[in-house]
């Protein structure tokens, strides 16, 4: 790389890195390191982290199972319906999470458009761990679908022509060629969605509530701790970051270049 390009690109890139990294540095600098271990192992932190891992991996699974077919269908058609569907999918990104939580209550809650019918069968979703997964899926799935759709659109369409003439149905082509080839896209989509779910706060607390062991995920525990004991909150945040960096590192190291 020449000096001109080092400066021309390196300058803005360095600013970008600073904007993103300085707050993390501050968090680490201000942490009360003597207490971190105690904060993490004691109290509700461990419970919250376990719940977070369970719910976020369920969310990732949900994205994989439900989001992959959706991404595939979106990638293969360019009709008006597809375009609108794609626009609508980005809505949960824009919805303030708290509003998202309210919308989820309006849907799955006791008086919600779906929930009122579920209540008749004795099924009530809010305030349960299932509600946490629904809330996380609601906010995270769009990231997954958009990432995977993009990867699928990048496939050479002639590969499908070849596979089809070799006798593969579109499902078989999807399974044996398209999916293996978009594994990097799926992995980064999963990484994005999982990370978004791990940090999810507003929709969860609004829709699922905040009960230790059942619906209090790590971000909720951090928030609660922040009000009382900022040092403990910092410790828990650092743990959360550590876990996410390890999981994302493993995911990326394995599947993403």
């Amino acid at each position, binding site marked *: 790389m020449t000096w001109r390009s080092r400066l021309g690109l390196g300058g803005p890139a360095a600013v970008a890195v600073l904007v993103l990294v300085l707050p993390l540095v501050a968090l680490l600098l201000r942490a009360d390191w003597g207490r971190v271990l105690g904060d993490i192992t004691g109290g509700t932190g461990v419970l919250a982290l376990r719940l977070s891992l369970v719910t976020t991996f369920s969310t990732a699974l949900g994205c994989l199972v439900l989001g992959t077919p959706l991404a595939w269908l979106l990638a293969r058609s360019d009709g008006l319906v597809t375009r609108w569907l794609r626009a609508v999918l980005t809505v949960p990104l824009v919805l303030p999470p708290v509003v998202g939580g*309210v919308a989820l*209550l309006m849907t799955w*809650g*006791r*008086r919600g458009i779906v929930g009122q019918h579920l209540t008749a069968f004795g099924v009530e979703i*809010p*305030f349960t761990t299932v509600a946490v997964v629904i809330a996380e899926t609601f906010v995270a799935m769009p990231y997954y679908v958009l990432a995977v759709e993009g990867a699928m659109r990048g496939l050479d369409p002639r590969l499908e022509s070849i596979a089809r003439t070799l006798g593969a149905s579109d499902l078989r082509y999807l399974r044996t060629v398209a999916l293996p080839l978009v594994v990097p896209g799926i992995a980064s989509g999963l990484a994005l969605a999982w990370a978004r779910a791990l940090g999810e706060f507003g929709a969860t*607390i*609004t829709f*699922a*509530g*905040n*009960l230790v062991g059942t*619906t209090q995920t790590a971000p*909720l525990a951090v*928030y*609660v*701790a*922040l*009000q*009382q004991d*900022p040092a403990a909150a910092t410790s828990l945040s650092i743990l959360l970051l550590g876990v996410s960096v390890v999981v994302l590192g493993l995911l990326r190291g394995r599947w993403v270049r």
Partner: protein
Amino acid sequence: GSPSTSTDAPPAGRSTGASGGPVAGTVTVLAAASLTESFDAIQAELHHTHPALTVRISYGSSATLVQQVNQGAPADVLALAGEAAADPLDASLVRSTTVFASNSLEIAVPPGNPGHVTALDDLARPDLKVVLCESTVPCGAAAATTLEKAHVNAHVVSREIDVKATLAKVSLGEADAAVVYHSDVVAAKGAVRGVPIPASVNTDLRYPVIALDDQPGTRAFIDAVLSPDGRRTLDALGFGAP
């Protein structure tokens, strides 16, 4: 109770507000979410007496506000729900503290009271979904105290991050009952119904207003809160005398 000061400064406002003319400049106020309606009204009144004074109010949960001040948010006035909320506040930032209102607890139920809640004891019923404030929030701490006094082991399904979120669960009908402030039931304007809690087990909260500097605008705002007009506004919205 009577106004109490926790620092060396004299009760700031009254004298200045009475003696000085209209004040100019900007005053930034951080106020607990439960004060939204009252402080909006007080801000409007203040505009008549000090038209050149710009008042900027940022509402949030008391604990967050304290965090912001500790981390160097440029604020002049801090108004919190409950004196305990001020505990984490960096004392060196405080110029004066004045309690300006009080609030008591009440059970909020959805209109129509589907859970048939009539007394505090009902909150222990397992068929009932009860939400409380998180124990770190002033209303949660107060509710815990009250339930303990009444020996009620409430069937809690969630501990919400602030009193407004707690109330929302009831007004949306997701929860059958919540323990909130009386002022919140008033502010909800019929979206929830109140079920009183006997004074014997109730817990009062005293709301402090804290000056973070000595600028004239700061004093003007605190004076307005403490003024008879301010008092009337707070009364109308369900707050008790300090």
